[in-house]
């Protein structure tokens, strides 16, 4: 047992990994939604959703969040 695992056991977090992993992807989704349009080449116009990389990125991150929540 390492000092890290000991710490996790003592704080009751040893088996709670899925909340941290899902939380990371939740934060990523928030950040992706907040990135200004001009930073991602959409200052002039927003492309339709199927050509919008922001939409696809959010979908991928949401899928990962669900994966960790269900199987983590």
């Amino acid at each position: 047992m390492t000092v890290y695992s000991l710490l996790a056991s003592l704080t009751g977090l040893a088996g709670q990994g899925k909340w941290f992993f899902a939380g990371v992807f939740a934060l990523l989704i928030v950040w992706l939604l907040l990135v200004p349009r001009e930073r991602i080449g959409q200052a002039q116009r927003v492309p339709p959703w199927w050509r919008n990389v922001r939409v696809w990125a959010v979908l991928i991150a949401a899928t990962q969040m669900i994966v960790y929540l269900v199987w983590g």
Partner: protein
Amino acid sequence: MLETSEPMGSLRLSSVDVAMVLAYLLGILALGMWLSRGIKTGRDLFLAGKSLPWWAVGASLVVSDIGAKDMVGLADDGYRYGLVMTNFDFIGCIFPVLIAAFLFMPYLWLAGVYTIPEYLGRRYNQAVRTLFAIIWGVFMTGMLAVIYVSAANVFEHLLGWEFWFSVLVTAVIVGLYTTMGGLKAVVFTDLVSCIVLIVGASLVCIFGLVEVGGWSGLQARIAEIPGTENHFELLLPADSDTPYPWPAVLLGLGFVLGPAYWIGNQAIVQRTFGTRSQNEARASYVLCAAIKLVFPLLLVIPGLIGLAAFHDRIGPADGPGWEGGQVLPTVLQLLPPGVLGIVVGAFLAGVMSNLDSYVNSAATLCVTDLYQPLIRPQASDRESLFVGRGLIVLFLAGGAAMSYRVYESFDSVYEAFQTFMSIFQGALLALLLLGMLSSRTTQWGGLAGMVCGVGSAVVMHLWHRMDFLPASWQIDAGISFLWVAWWSFVAAVAGTVAVSLVTRPFDKERLRGLVYWLPAEEADA
């Protein structure tokens, strides 16, 4: 458990399989040579003249990451640890790739750099650039040898090829189209390889799962094997005895090694620099992340199938009969003729796409960061093209020459490379993050951060084991490399911040286009 009459290591292809493999090899070679038309300058060779479409680059990113060693290694580790290994592509890839897509890649693209050390040189100074170029050059040369050896190991099992014959075939084919066609040939042959790889890996999973009674049959069989309680867990408890407790995976892999690899690995990011616009650079990374949602399962599930079907023959992982690299070839025995040809083609695809990416990037890095700035600043573009092609041949030959030495001690050397990466990845990520996100980070801060990060990683490795190098290459790559990556990153950040606070930063105009908050004036198409 399944009983087959086929002894391990004697798998042979039918004539249909051989025909398919030969067709694949010749097809890739023809495609690569055809794409070599119009290569006239170093920019064409190294960046494909900035003409690459996002969908080809996205697929190429996937197979540049997944090579022969990963296919074999992930099947082994899937057998040994189970689904936890998918984290290397989930939190270790998808998370950093999405951040890179929206934060780093468009800015690196706009900066117009050929290599990551070139960006570090512009953002910090020549010393940082040269040191990272040397570190990457050494790493890539060793990596080429590892790729040759991992390919030869499996070709020996599948095709009965001798070691040197295997090395020769891969070197000649990859050498021909990479030397002539450069990055363009690399990316488009990678696109074909990605499709073949996905089809091949899917077929292994489908035929394997049918053999063991589907997913429920797989779970039931593995449940009967002692020591496999966590094989279907995506995250292992923090007090797990394996090398992958979730805090180490999150901090070491998710926050340091993954981002450093997907943002700072020249062999990965170079193809993105060759896209037509920064929007296409971003889209290529998002496509890569989408493919990575399913790809890791296709590589880890064969290990679980091997555990369910062949545990009696292979034995317990790390037991007396355990031999690294045997799980995947054993599982392939379940495939019928014809299908096996496609899967072997997929394996060849993994070998060649991995090898072409590293050799092209190693040559780019040497020309851009060492030859041009240090040896021949006045070199013309045509001279760079000539030197670049020569270096591709040299790297392929050098990797081949080193490969037999690696072959003799493959397991420990592969682990040594993981350890080697953990030595500089933390520092690299710290410098990229702080350099790109803050204009207050100074050149001397960057240099100090690099010294602190690399130095602390070396000290931590030495602290872990006193028999470091010459004894027998017995390097324990278990939990330590993830934690070393994390703490060296922390040390590099601390060193960079501390020295930056007491030294003078570059003025804002000097940093325009190099820092996120100071975008370049130029707008791309």
